């Protein structure tokens, strides 16, 4: 009997487990999945909690209900990965040897990386919304907040879901209008990027929306510290941005155990071959989702598009065949823009987000790189798709793992620069 061990039962790990049970002979292969947390969070839903659109109960399910019964599920902390010995040690002293390892340990926020962030005002006037606790506590505060200067700061790239900070600001603009206090709120985006987003055309388009909504931007702002006494964040080039309420996207890093096991880069992301999804160093170790250093967005849709590639390559490797499936960096993100509208972007390693229609040329129903009501419907409908299709490792109708140029309008000359 051979063993495939999956580390992490979040979005990526759950999909891999569900797909592999149908692709491997159960008489030959034993599949084991390990996670420290018994609760699965629908992380795209965290964004909506501060604004009362979702309650915590909307984004939570027990992991056991999402994993196939044929897979051995262990809830324990991973103490050490020993890829040179094909072995993983758990905090409960259990040791598991594997033939193949799939790492799906994700990325996580580290507010302690920024001096001053956690000192005195954490979850009082400084909040994250990338955890259920942060999103819930921020929601409590916003219910009674009387206005002031709300600053959204991205500490460092890369971050999980790079559009989430923009969505947060768009929704904040909507929420404060709904509460009738928008005129008492200043909204500011302080970002290390030169504009609203990482890719030129989308950055220009999203930058226009920020401007229209009266959200100001402090670009190329790389935070050095939080000065709690002065209530400012200070950049490495000594610029100061004052706040009454600071919403932070802290430094994102791979799991601590990746660092402790000596498998990661400076941010604990594992060096990974971007097309095969095999690690640079160990040929029987594969990566799905945020855990690797693949230069694609860190997002659930990306993990979904990686899934078929990873499974095909893993099966080829098991059979001793050449790994032919090639990941193209495909990402597909609904960006909620407030007032029941949304924007959709679809891109990969090479092609930046372009205007057009998706997934069907002409028919849509979604429109790329522009606001529409149907895009908002897509965004809100994604929760159902996530629980019922995506996590099960099933294909989303009409949406291929590889990005399609069909329906996209290619502009001959870029009108924008990042």
């Amino acid at each position, binding site marked *: 009997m051979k063993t495939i061990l999956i580390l992490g039962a979040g979005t990526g790990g759950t999909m891999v487990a569900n797909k592999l049970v149908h692709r491997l002979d159960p008489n030959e292969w034993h599949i084991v999945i390990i996670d420290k947390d018994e609760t699965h969070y629908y992380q795209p839903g965290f964004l909506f909690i501060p604004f009362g659109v979702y309650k915590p109960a909307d984004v939570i399910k027990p992991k056991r209900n999402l994993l196939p019964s044929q897979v051995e599920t262990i809830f324990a902390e991973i103490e050490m990965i020993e890829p040179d010995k094909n072995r993983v040690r758990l905090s409960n002293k259990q040791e598991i040897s594997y033939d193949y390892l799939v790492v799906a340990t994700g990325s996580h926020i580290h507010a302690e990386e920024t001096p001053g962030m956690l000192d005195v005002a954490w979850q009082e006037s400084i909040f994250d919304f990338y955890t259920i606790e942060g999103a819930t506590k921020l929601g409590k505060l916003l219910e009674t907040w009387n206005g002031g200067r709300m600053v959204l700061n991205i500490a*460092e790239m890369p971050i999980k879901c*790079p559009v989430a900070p923009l969505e947060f600001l768009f929704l904040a603009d909507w929420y404060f209008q709904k509460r009738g206090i928008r005129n008492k709120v200043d909204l500011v985006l302080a970002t290390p990027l030169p504009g609203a987003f*990482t890719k030129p055309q989308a950055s220009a388009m999203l930058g226009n929306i920020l401007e229209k909504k009266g959200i100001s931007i402090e670009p190329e702002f790389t935070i050095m510290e939080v000065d709690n006494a002065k209530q400012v964040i200070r950049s490495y080039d000594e610029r100061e941005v004052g706040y009454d309420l600071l919403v932070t996207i802290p430094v994102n890093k791979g799991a601590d155990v990746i660092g402790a096991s000596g498998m990661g880069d*400076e941010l604990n992301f594992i060096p990974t071959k971007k097309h095969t999804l095999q690690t640079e160093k160990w040929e029987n170790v594969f990566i799905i989702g945020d855990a690797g*250093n693949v*230069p694609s967005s860190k997002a659930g849709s990306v993990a979904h598009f990686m899934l078929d590639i990873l499974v095909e390559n893993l099966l080829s490797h098991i059979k001793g065949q050449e790994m032919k499936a090639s990941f193209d960096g495909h990402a597909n993100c609904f960006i909620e823009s407030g007032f029941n509208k949304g924007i959709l972007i679809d891109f990969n390693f090479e092609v930046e987000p372009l205007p057009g229609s998706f997934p069907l040329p002409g028919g849509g129903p979604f429109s790329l790189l522009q606001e529409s009501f149907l895009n908002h419907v897509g965004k809100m409908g994604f929760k159902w798709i996530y629980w019922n299709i995506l996590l099960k490792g099933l294909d989303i109708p009409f949406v291929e793992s590889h990005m399609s140029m069909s329906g996209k309008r290619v502009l001959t000359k*870029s009108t924008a620069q990042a």
Partner: protein
Amino acid sequence: MLDILKSVSFNKEGFMTSPAQWTKEIAVELAKQESVELTDAHWNIVEFCRQNAATTGKSPTLRQITSGTGFSTKDLFALFPKGPAKKVAKIAGLGKPEGCV
């Protein structure tokens, strides 16, 4: 002096597309465009980034530059204002650092 940039190919974000075309003279001109005058400290960092990219095939991130050169993040922002990793990559004739995805 801008003549020496004429034979060099750039992408639309202003990064050189072929690191092999790079020379120190080109770096001086590219630095001028970024309003940076290259001192020894700048050259140390440019050299580190060139070597690092030659082994890894990509531009180093800010964190890789600080740990590889011993310069602090603050120093790097003083030497290459605003976005040091991006600015050094541009001057060193390398691609855009992949942190920006």
